[in-house]
């Protein structure tokens, strides 16, 4: 027990870096997913080829190797050295963004054709149609996979320990070296990763429910199980 009490601040510090890289990586991956994913659904062939090329290249490259390349090789080419945290965020964001783009593209294509046609019949411009009609409906479909990708990215962030960023994994290895308590040192990291994953999972579930309610699904289910009366205000409960 003493081990955990004494080492908690160190683990928390490691968790901070893990979180930082996860959040940064997710932000980058999200932007890439949306842009590349939407471009992948355009009618313009060139646009689609560019999107496809991005996905194939960055999905096929190991995040770890990409990070090494950004951190060790890029300075040789450009003379600039990236901060290790930044190199990690870039590598993870670029890699996971490729998966995310496929998710976005698939979700957009899954919106029923009739919705596009109704958008044409109401004379929306293509950008308005995407923004007002298609993306809000595709959003609910994207979220579950985005949730998984966030967790994947969070666990993948462990690779930064290899370029000496003191994230959770790095901290666990150091604790093991200094204390000799192999079991406990890695148990601490396991627990911390699990807790962080739970937090992300909870937030994503909430976002999924909200997205479904906006599409008129599950209106009778409360957003939070216990606060049913507080959030049930949108539904009048009248049978159609």
């Amino acid at each position: 027990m003493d081990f955990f009490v004494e080492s908690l601040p160190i683990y928390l510090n490691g968790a901070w870096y893990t979180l930082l890289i996860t959040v940064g990586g997710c932000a980058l991956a999200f932007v890439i997913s949306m842009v590349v994913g939407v471009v992948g659904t355009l009618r313009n062939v060139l646009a689609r080829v560019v999107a496809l090329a991005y996905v194939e290249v960055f999905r096929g490259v190991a995040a770890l190797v990409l990070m090494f390349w950004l951190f060790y090789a890029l300075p040789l080419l450009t003379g600039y050295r990236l901060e290790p945290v930044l190199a990690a965020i870039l590598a993870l964001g670029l890699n996971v963004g490729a998966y995310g783009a496929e998710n976005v593209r698939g979700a957009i294509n899954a919106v029923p054709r009739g919705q596009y046609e109704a958008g044409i019949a109401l004379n929306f411009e293509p950008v308005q149609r995407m923004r007002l009609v298609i993306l809000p409906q595709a959003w609910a479909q994207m979220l579950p996979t985005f949730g998984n990708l966030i967790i994947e990215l969070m666990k993948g962030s462990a690779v930064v320990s290899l370029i000496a960023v003191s994230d959770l994994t790095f901290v666990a290895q150091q604790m093991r070296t200094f204390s000799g308590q192999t079991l406990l040192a890695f148990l601490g990291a396991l627990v911390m990763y699990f807790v962080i994953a739970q937090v992300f999972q909870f937030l994503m579930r909430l976002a999924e429910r909200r997205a479904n309610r906006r599409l008129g699904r599950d209106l009778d289910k409360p957003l939070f199980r216990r606060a049913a009366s507080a959030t049930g205000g949108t539904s009048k409960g009248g049978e159609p």
Partner: protein
Amino acid sequence: MPQSDDNNSAEVPKAREAEEQPLVRFENVVKRYGDNVVLDELDFNVLPGQRVTLIGPSGSGKTTILRLLMTLEQVDDGVIWVDGDPLSHMYRNGALVRASQKHQRGVRKKIGMVFQQLNLFPNMTVRRNITEAPVHTLGMSRDEADERAAELLEMVGLADRIDEHPTRLSGGQQQRVAIARALAMRPEILLLDEVTSALDPELVAGVLDVLREIARTTDITMLAVTHEMGFAKDVSHRVLMFDRGQIVEDGPPERIFSEPREERTKSFLHAVLEAG
């Protein structure tokens, strides 16, 4: 109008002159899906204010006509004109070339459509379903669009459901909202594509009543594909019988329904009335 003698005999609202410019004109329109010719050099006109019902066996090209007019599909040959402007094409250096998307947007704003599959936007309330397009594409203010939405919902009998989610409405109610949504754009031409076919039988009457009311109180031009022959009889000025991508018979509903001249019309009507 070469293909039929009674094209002009169709009853048109009295204030209108027979020689006025057609609002819709199909000129030798051809539409193919692969080897399947859906519309075969189709020629016909619709005058302003005319309400036209398209009937015929499935696969005869009726729905394709509406989809071409709404620019959901593009012609393979021929030209579609709307109010004197080409819809499928545009002028460039005096010659007709394929229309750009932008050109089509400019012309099709005169056209509204209601679909068999309802197609309300599930991510919006009833109000936003109706107001979003006028606000974003016509530049209407929110207040004005809200006011118009309230009026239209009143007309379709759903004034109290304005802030409801479409998923909370029955199919018939959703279709009435879809009609209000199309009218909110103040189209000159309303396309109705089998708007009651996907509804439970007991919900059909409510939707047809709304359409009868629109026919009675407005002079909007309608092109309707329907299997509701009673409705076609009540509302339309003119019935076009299609078969294999061609107009087989063209005339006022009283004549077509009571004394069809063509064998194909007779057998089609017989089959439909049997089923109904």
